[in-house]
């Protein structure tokens, strides 16, 4: 096979894809191909129905053989989708894969323009620019980096637990970092799980103890990731371990210290029970907490506040596990892949003031009710309201802080099902009449609709209408002393006032308050609502735009337990795929410094977001670590002496592209230049 790469003459192959009707409907592909065929240097110009299909790729390879092509331009969809496909096709045809340029005439042209004539003109302009550009493409080499097989999982909810166990069971070493004193996340707070009504603790705690005892998992609770540097396969992670003032290795969770605390009764709001009960300064979140180790809260402990405590807890511990002098420690680990499963927070019901949360004691959020009916909850599972009464009627308001442009626009997906579950459980626990106020029941899931049917048959009332307000002024004697829910029963077509003893607000799911900080630390993106953004909503749901960082669970969007677990498994599999490949191919679009031109001004060094630029004190020049460089181009633009150049984006390529775009026709000159360069 003749080597076409350096035979002096440009022989460009141009291919325009119809993409079925996606492009062809809005762009005159035949006219486009005919126009490009007349440009200098273009040897072949074709249009084809699906360039990404096997026949489409073979067409390129055949043309390289038959026509001696040495540059390829494909005008089709986004490079994100198919740049790799075409590079491989070009490589198979015997060319360097970087002698290829892709033009996006689908997302950038046919999908966004209405006028066919103007769209065709734009496609011509963009294609002409690419044809001018490929003259200057250089032969580049692929680069590979080794992948560290260890993994980091951030967040120990059900998604993090499942991802960590999956990786650990496959023999990978996993670091699981959790902010709270125990793993388990929101699921540990739930009473039962829909639609099967398994007890949440019964199915979760075995997994929690499996995490604790797994030889491949290093569990760091009460810890936070503070810094991440490095790149795919070689991340360096700093973890801050907050002091719990208990030696984790010595404590066995006998709870003697809690009994002996100078506080005879709990005094501070228990976070795990949503503030429905009180805890002491020394506490354990719940009986099955993992690790089974108590924690001292320095904010409330007398010894930390005044230093004048009898310290009965220390005396009570016969293992000497309590160490009030413990300090914050920092750990540094090297990992190859990272899975983020940082979860969600529930919507703050105070933001919808007309539902009376915080104003009327008997208005609860759903998470509070989960604790209230839980056997290990503040009331031991008995349904006793804040005012000590037992409710005879309960109203459950769906979509609180969801599907609402005034708060959150999205559907939180889980509220319908957990409201049905709570309706069932509340009826079961108290025999109360239960009213559900809903906009739509979204029970799309395996056995979900059947569960809805079951709850309907239990004679739970379903009123299709969004509640306007919860008030306490009675319009008739039957409403005295009750909370009144006012809603339109849209099925019957009348406005109703329903007096109830207890109101449950089915609050939606939101990104965590620190989602933006986490996003920045791990260098990933968020969608507009603030959830972590996946690489592709359908085809890469657990990948992010940062290689080696994966997302799982509700940090990516509202999700129930089955979906979170499925996603965690998928994220673990993706991480394993990277690890088992052993090395990863890097884009050769890195920047490099021409040493003789570098003045050593150091202006590029602080700009680099990846800390890839270092300064050589002996030569007084900067140099770039190629493995760290991500090819963002910041330093290239900033260098005052123009000594930094970037592969695939060097000055000649960019200027030629601009000239092509503006139809400044000096292609003959380029041809000479390109031969000179090539």
């Amino acid at each position, binding site marked *: 096979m003749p080597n076409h790469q350096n035979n002096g003459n440009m022989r460009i192959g141009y291919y325009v894809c119809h993409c079925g009707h996606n492009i062809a409907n809005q762009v005159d592909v035949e006219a486009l191909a005919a126009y490009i065929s007349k440009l200098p240097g273009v040897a072949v110009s074709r249009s084809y129905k699906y360039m990404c299909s096997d026949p489409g790729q073979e067409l390129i390879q055949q043309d390289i053989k038959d026509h001696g092509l040495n540059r390829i331009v494909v005008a089709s969809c986004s490079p994100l989708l198919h740049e790799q496909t075409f590079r491989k096709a070009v490589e198979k045809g015997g060319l360097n894969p970087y002698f290829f340029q892709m033009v996006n005439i689908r997302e950038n042209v046919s999908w966004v323009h209405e006028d066919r004539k103007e769209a065709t003109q734009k496609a011509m302009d963009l294609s002409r620019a690419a044809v001018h550009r490929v003259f200057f493409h250089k032969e580049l080499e692929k680069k590979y980096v080794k992948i560290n097989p260890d993994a980091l999982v951030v967040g120990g909810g059900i998604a993090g637990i499942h991802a960590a166990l999956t990786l650990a069971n496959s023999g990978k070493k996993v670091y699981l970092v959790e902010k709270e004193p125990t793993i388990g996340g929101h699921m540990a707070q739930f009473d039962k799980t829909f639609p099967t009504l398994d007890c949440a603790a019964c199915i979760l705690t075995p997994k929690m103890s499996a995490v604790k005892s797994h030889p491949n998992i290093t569990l760091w609770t009460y810890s936070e990731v503070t810094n991440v540097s490095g790149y795919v396969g070689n991340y360096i992670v700093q973890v801050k371990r907050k002091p719990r003032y208990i030696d984790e290795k010595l404590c066995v969770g006998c709870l003697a210290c809690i009994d002996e605390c100078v506080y005879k009764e709990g005094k501070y709001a228990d976070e795990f029970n949503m503030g429905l009960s009180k805890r002491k300064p020394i506490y354990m979140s719940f009986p099955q907490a993992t690790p089974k180790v108590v924690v001292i809260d320095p904010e409330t402990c007398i010894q930390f506040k005044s230093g004048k405590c009898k310290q009965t807890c220390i005396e009570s511990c016969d293992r000497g596990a309590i160490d009030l002098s413990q300090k914050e420690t920092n750990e540094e680990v090297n990992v190859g892949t990272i899975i983020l499963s940082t979860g969600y927070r529930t919507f703050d019901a105070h933001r919808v003031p007309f539902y009376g949360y915080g104003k009327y004691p008997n208005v609860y959020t759903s998470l509070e009710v989960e604790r209230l009916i839980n056997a290990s909850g503040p009331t031991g599972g008995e349904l006793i309201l804040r005012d000590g009464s037992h409710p005879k009627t309960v109203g459950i308001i769906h979509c609180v802080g969801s599907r609402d442009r005034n708060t959150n626009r999205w559907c939180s997906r889980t509220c319908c099902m957990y409201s049905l579950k709570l309706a069932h459980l509340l009826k079961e626990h108290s025999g109360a009449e239960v009213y559900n106020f809903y906009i739509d029941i979204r029970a799309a899931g395996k056995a979900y609709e059947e569960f809805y049917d079951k709850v309907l048959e239990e004679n739970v009332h379903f009123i299709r209408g969004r509640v306007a307000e919860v008030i306490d002024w009675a319009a008739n004697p039957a409403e005295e002393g009750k909370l009144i829910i006012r809603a339109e029963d849209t099925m019957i077509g009348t*406005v109703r006032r329903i007096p109830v003893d207890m109101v449950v607000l089915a609050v939606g799911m939101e990104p965590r308050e620190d989602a933006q900080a986490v996003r920045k630390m791990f260098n990933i993106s968020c969608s507009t609502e603030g959830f972590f953004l996946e690489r592709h909503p359908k085809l890469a749901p657990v990948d992010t735009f940062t290689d080696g960082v994966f997302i799982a669970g509700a940090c990516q969007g509202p999700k129930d337990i089955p979906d979170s677990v499925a996603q965690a498994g998928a994220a673990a599999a993706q991480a394993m795929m990277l690890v088992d490949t052993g090395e990863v191919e890097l884009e050769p679009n890195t920047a490099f410094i021409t040493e003789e031109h570098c003045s050593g001004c150091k202006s590029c060094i602080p700009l680099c977001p990846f800390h890839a630029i270092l300064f050589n004190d002996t030569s007084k020049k900067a140099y770039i670590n190629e493995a760290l460089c991500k090819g963002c181009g910041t330093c290239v633009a900033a260098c005052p002496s123009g000594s930094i150049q970037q592969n695939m984006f060097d000055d000649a390529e960019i200027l030629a592209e601009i000239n092509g775009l503006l139809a400044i026709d000096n292609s003959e000159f380029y041809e000479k230049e390109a031969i000179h360069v090539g």
Partner: protein
Amino acid sequence: MISLFPLGFVENKSSPDPRDKMRKIKYESELDLKFGEQMAAKAYGQKLLSCIQCGTCSSTCPLSDYMDYTPRKIIAMTREGFRDEVLNSLTIWLCSSCYACTVKCPRQIHITDVMYTLKREAIARGVYPKRYPIPIFSREFFNIVRKQGRNSEAILLIKFYLKTNLFMMFKQAFMGLRLMRTGRFSFKRDKIERIDKLQRLLKAAESIEEVRT
């Protein structure tokens, strides 16, 4: 008190078939399918089409108890092209512009403004009963303010009763006299200075309104 139902509505006599009075089904051919889009295109109606029929507006509305169709139904019927029912309804006239529905609407539909748009449409088409009080009240009020820059209550009420229900004027006469005695009600025409400037301003506002609707 002004009666909310002074004369009742004239029934639709479009069909010659007497059985049609009992017919509950609505044929697509009887609808004005463009009506929803037309109303959505008018002032503040842009989000009308995104209604999810949750009923928050109806349950918030302090007057929905007296309406023939709840606000939610009005939005649904407008969207689906039930033009005659919507424009003949009491609902649009009962809306007292408290904006409670607009504040709570999860789709941020400007329901109060949609009601105004529908009222204007009803006036433009002349589909409400001739002596229906609410539009007459509004128009007389506006005419007096335009002429004088201030409202004169006694004159407004006399004009209003003359055009709606003369009988009511006699019924209310005693209360009027009592109010007059305490100085709360008079036939004096209050006027502002530089009335020409106000009129120019109102004219400009009207021309803007015409362009927008």
